């Protein structure tokens, strides 16, 4: 049973299609990244998953239950941080947790203490939230999401406003939660963060799923190699004459090329046979940002 599953999920506002037949499946205990440029439909998807807006078509299941039909059963098992953290500014951090805890049922003071400890707000919990920095508000928002010890965490831009140390803490926290068996679904623009912590990512653009793959697979996608040689220009010219080497190019003194039958050893053999003894040959890893930009590039531009 998937932690989160969308089936042909669509949402339109008038003639504008915000989300278009989106199929996602997030496994349990997975750290799942959800990426897309502004206006791609990420937040709309999250809002539909949380029952905040009704899909035009399709469905969302969380922990095996349809969200619209079983919202009061399933949503208390989910913790969410949607967009910027919405908090009661006139209440203290602790009272914010108490108020949400009351709504949820019975959340003990012990659990509230635990959550404050987890998000690092223990010393400031009695201060009014309106005096908090953006990063502290973000931590409290995360605390609210964790309050009910959820099985699924849905976090929209969780690193917003956090300083570098806070980002590292957040990363460790999310990894620990996944290690405890919780599913973490992160929508983020901080691609390096997603690359570091997520096991799989979905990339959407214009409301449509562009790619869903393990991060490792995505990063190696393209099957290119980096070759360090003394004569890069001559090598590029030689590669371009090959059927498989049409995309060969020189970047920062390195030759970037595909390999015959996609294998590194075949490329090395080609280099040696053609008199280009390489200093180094390595599989080329693109970062997620590069992949993201390629996949979400607007073809109109």
């Amino acid at each position, binding site marked *: 049973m998937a932690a989160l599953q969308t089936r042909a999920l669509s949402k339109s506002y008038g003639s504008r299609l915000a989300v278009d037949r989106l199929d996602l499946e997030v496994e349990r205990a997975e750290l799942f990244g959800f990426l897309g440029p502004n206006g791609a439909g990420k937040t709309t998807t999250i809002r539909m998953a949380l029952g*905040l807006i009704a899909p035009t078509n399709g469905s969302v299941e969380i922990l095996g239950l349809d969200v619209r039909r079983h919202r009061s059963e399933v*949503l208390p098992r989910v913790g969410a941080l949607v967009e910027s953290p919405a908090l009661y500014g006139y*209440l203290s951090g602790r*009272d914010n947790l108490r108020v949400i805890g009351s709504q949820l049922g019975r*959340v003990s003071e012990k659990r509230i203490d635990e959550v404050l400890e987890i998000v690092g707000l223990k010393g400031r919990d009695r201060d009014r939230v309106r005096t908090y920095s953006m990063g502290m508000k973000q931590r409290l928002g995360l605390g609210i999401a964790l309050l*009910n*010890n959820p099985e699924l965490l849905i976090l929209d831009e969780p690193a917003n406003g956090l300083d570098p140390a806070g980002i590292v803490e957040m990363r460790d926290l999310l990894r620990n939660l996944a290690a405890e068996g919780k599913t973490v679904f992160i929508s983020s623009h901080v691609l390096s963060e997603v690359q570091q912590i997520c096991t799989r990512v979905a990339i959407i653009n214009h409301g449509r799923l562009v790619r869903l793959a393990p991060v490792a697979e995505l990063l190696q996608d393209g099957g290119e190699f980096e070759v360090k040689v003394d004569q890069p220009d001559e090598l590029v010219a030689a590669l371009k004459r090959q059927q498989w080497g049409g995309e060969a190019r020189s970047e920062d003194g390195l030759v970037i090329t595909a390999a015959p039958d996609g294998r590194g050893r075949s490329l090395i053999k080609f280099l040696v046979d053609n008199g280009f003894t390489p200093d180094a040959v390595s599989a080329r890893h693109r970062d997620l940002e590069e992949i993201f930009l390629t996949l979400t590039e607007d073809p109109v531009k």
Partner: protein
Amino acid sequence: MTAVALRPRFFGAVGGEVRKVSRQLSFWLMLLGALVMLGVITLAVSGAEGLKSQLNSDPTGWAYNELEVFGTLFQIGSGIFLLIIGSRLIAMEYSSGTIRILYARGTGRLQLLLAKMLTLAIIGVALLAGFIVLAFAILAALVTSLHGNLDPVQSFSNAFWADFGRWALVQGISMGMAILMAAAAAGIGRSLAFAMAASLAFFPADNFTNILEQLAVRATGHQHPWMDISTYQLGANLNVLLNLLEPTHRARPAFASPLIPVDLTHCLVVVGVFALGFAVIAVARAVRPDVLE
């Protein structure tokens, strides 16, 4: 703690709402302001001429006069208080976006609205009870200072005590209308500024309409339809309700009343229709499927 054990609870939500209200500075400042106002009115009343002689000659009449003064103060104050607190409690969830946290946790839209309205009703009842206790303490102090003991209180007629009960009932109805109106205004605007402005402007506008109707009668020389309209105004009907409930029709409306005499049934139907209308608007807006805040 297991996550599965948690489920949104109605009375849990009420507890959360009570906590929210009790932590609002404006709530306590308004209560403090009301106490100061009550003190000022008490000082003014205690210095009034002929107070002692009236108490000695007609204790019940004296009690009716005091009820009118303090009752009017409560009617205005409790209405404004509940409209402000109600608007803040409901509309601020939309303005600050916190509504999405609550809904995203599985709290039912109707459940949350009802929890908020029950919280406001509890505050209203506590307010009325507190006011009655305080008002009687003040009256007892006045009677003692004027007469030397509380004997005149025993002379208050049974009719006075029955009318006092009717006054409390009318205050309850008025407070209920204020709560419903605040909920409707919050639902329509889904913003604190709109809810506050619309609900606070309603009764002054309602009373002002009464003046416009009288001007229209003079200007056109026709009583209809101007005077008929006044019989369907909420404020005018609430203002005259106590008078209609009393067998002796002793209570005088402090503000605008219908320009044509209406009976109790008409008055209750008008108030009931407004109550139903406000409730329908509040519910219809609360259960709207898309929460974009």
